[in-house]
């Protein structure tokens, strides 16, 4: 393999990955994002029969165009992912990693149904449409919302899992109790425990349920379920708020560390300034915040010098 080939592969990876920010990668990002948004809009509109019949050829042409683009994107991604790790690192294949990653699977399954349709023209169109809708998840590659959410849930997984566990126990307990108490009075509504569980979840989600209890104990149970649903909302909110605050704090700590590192030698080079700027933009910190941090650090330094001097 020549070096020119390697270079090209490397450059393609950089552009598609967008990790090294350049004009080409930003354009590529915008182009794919806009195409995905248009695709989602087209899929939604296509489901309206009048629009589908009126613009069938245009919609089909658009779909063909996007499939070609997405196929090229997929092939390029697979090809360029080979340049991710240097060849001498054994057992680490950038290609395998990409193909079996979440985004790799999304890219694959949102494009391939089109070819399947060519091979088997009898396939159900609605299933194909569903697969095409997967394209919306291509967007989350360019938005950190998903990753942030996953990171937040991961860092608070104990609280989340205990909240879900609590819900699970409550659903078993309450639905079996309401089955025992109201099952005889309203056999058509609570014929079995699964039916009662369905009632429980509806009540938890949307408040006072669709079913009026008849017995006294039944109404007490319903009221308890209501209270539980408020508690559940509060628990979820609290957990999310804590996770989020922790995340912001973590980012600020990271920035502070970086800043301390840079200020340690007393000079701020151009490159360091650039790095700080990009970090600030990534973390969404305000200028005032950064200024306060710098001031605090200078103050600390002065105090340390005073202490050393005396």
């Amino acid at each position, binding site marked *: 393999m020549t070096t020119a080939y390697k270079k090209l592969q490397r450059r393609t990876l950089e552009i598609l990955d967008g990790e090294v920010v350049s004009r080409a990668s930003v354009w590529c990002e915008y182009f794919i994002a806009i195409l995905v948004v248009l695709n*989602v809009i087209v*899929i*939604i*509109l296509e*489901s*309206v*029969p009048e629009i589908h019949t009126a613009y069938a050829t245009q919609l089909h042409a658009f779909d063909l165009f996007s499939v070609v683009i997405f196929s090229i994107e997929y092939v390029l991604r697979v090809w360029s992912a080979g340049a991710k790790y240097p060849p001498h690192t054994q057992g680490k294949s950038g290609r395998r990693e990409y193909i079996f990653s979440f985004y790799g699977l999304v890219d694959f399954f949102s494009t391939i149904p089109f070819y399947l349709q060519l091979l088997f023209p009898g396939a159900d169109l*609605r*299933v194909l*449409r*569903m697969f095409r*809708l997967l394209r*919306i*998840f291509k*967007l*989350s590659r360019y*938005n*950190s*919302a*998903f990753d*942030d*959410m996953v990171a937040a849930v991961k860092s608070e997984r104990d609280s989340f899992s205990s909240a879900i566990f609590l819900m699970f126990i409550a659903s078993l307990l309450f639905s079996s109790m309401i089955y025992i108490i109201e099952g005889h009075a309203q056999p058509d509504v609570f014929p079995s425990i699964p039916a009662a569980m*369905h009632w429980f*979840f*509806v009540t938890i*989600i*949307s*408040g006072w349920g669709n079913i009026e209890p008849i017995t006294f104990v039944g109404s007490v149970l319903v009221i308890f379920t209501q209270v539980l649903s408020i508690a*559940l*909302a509060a628990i*979820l*909110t*609290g*957990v*999310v*708020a*804590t*996770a*989020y*605050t922790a995340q*912001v704090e973590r980012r600020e700590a990271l920035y502070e560390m970086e800043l301390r590192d840079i200020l340690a030698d007393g000079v701020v080079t151009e490159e360091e300034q650039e790095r700080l700027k990009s970090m600030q933009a990534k973390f*969404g910190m*305000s200028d*005032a*915040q950064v200024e*306060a941090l710098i*001031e*605090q650090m200078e*103050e600390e330094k*002065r*105090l340390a010098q*005073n*202490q050393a001097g*005396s």
Partner: protein
Amino acid sequence: MRQVVMDILDGSPNYKASRYVEWVITVVVLTNCAAVILDSIPSVHLAYKDFFHAFEFWSVMFFTLEYVLRIWSLGAKFSDSAWRGRRQYIFSPFGLIDFFATMPFYLHIFFPTLDLRILRVLRLLRVLKLSKYNTALQDLFHAVYSERKAFGSAVFLLLIATIVSASLMHFAEGHAQPEFFGTIPHSIYWAIVTITAGYGNVEPVTKFGEIIALVSGFLGVCMAAIMTGIVASAFSNQVARKKAAFEAQLREVFKDGQMSEDEQAALKRLQVQYRFTDLQVEAMLQRAKSKTAGGRS
């Protein structure tokens, strides 16, 4: 003179008069709003027509005076050019509110045929004048603004959740209930109602649809939790940030070991701006004092 008027209108804590001006404007705005609301009741309008008219006239005079004074006095804000401060005020949100809350009256004089209801709505804009004196509202905006990325992400998630659950519902129930789920735009309406208001307006018929409906309802609960969580953490982060800024100022003041009159006034202003209680400031003061003492010994 201009400087003094500007400080008073700006609510600087150095003058007692600025507090009175604030109170007078607040009272006038509140009575104005009450008048606009009462005036829309036909029987009240008929009985007290003249009174309302006179009241409106005098309050417009009052607001006009305020507006003119503000423009005139803000010439003193920047020393290099008188119009820089003025321009800044005129095109600031508060300047625009002041303008649009007063102007309809004059419009009415020039164009007597204008629809009265529009004028009435514009007059109600005056209530926004109060937001200048309410720092809590500004805090809210700042907090939301500083977390705009998180809000954007939450909205993005909401959008994805809506579209995905709507399409799944279309596939599951499209044939069973074509009047509700026949097209994806129809199902999107259902999904928005389910996610924002809870499980409910349309009963799903199929088992698969039932599960999707329950999951969407649960997603709605999660979405509310995410939004509330972001706002709560934005607020607490903002308070922490203000505290840090105030403490930095305190340390700055104590650097030379004493507090001059100027510095005290600056601290006081900052305290009012950040709405810290005296107790909080006292605690921070103690901490800063002990820290500098330790550092210097």
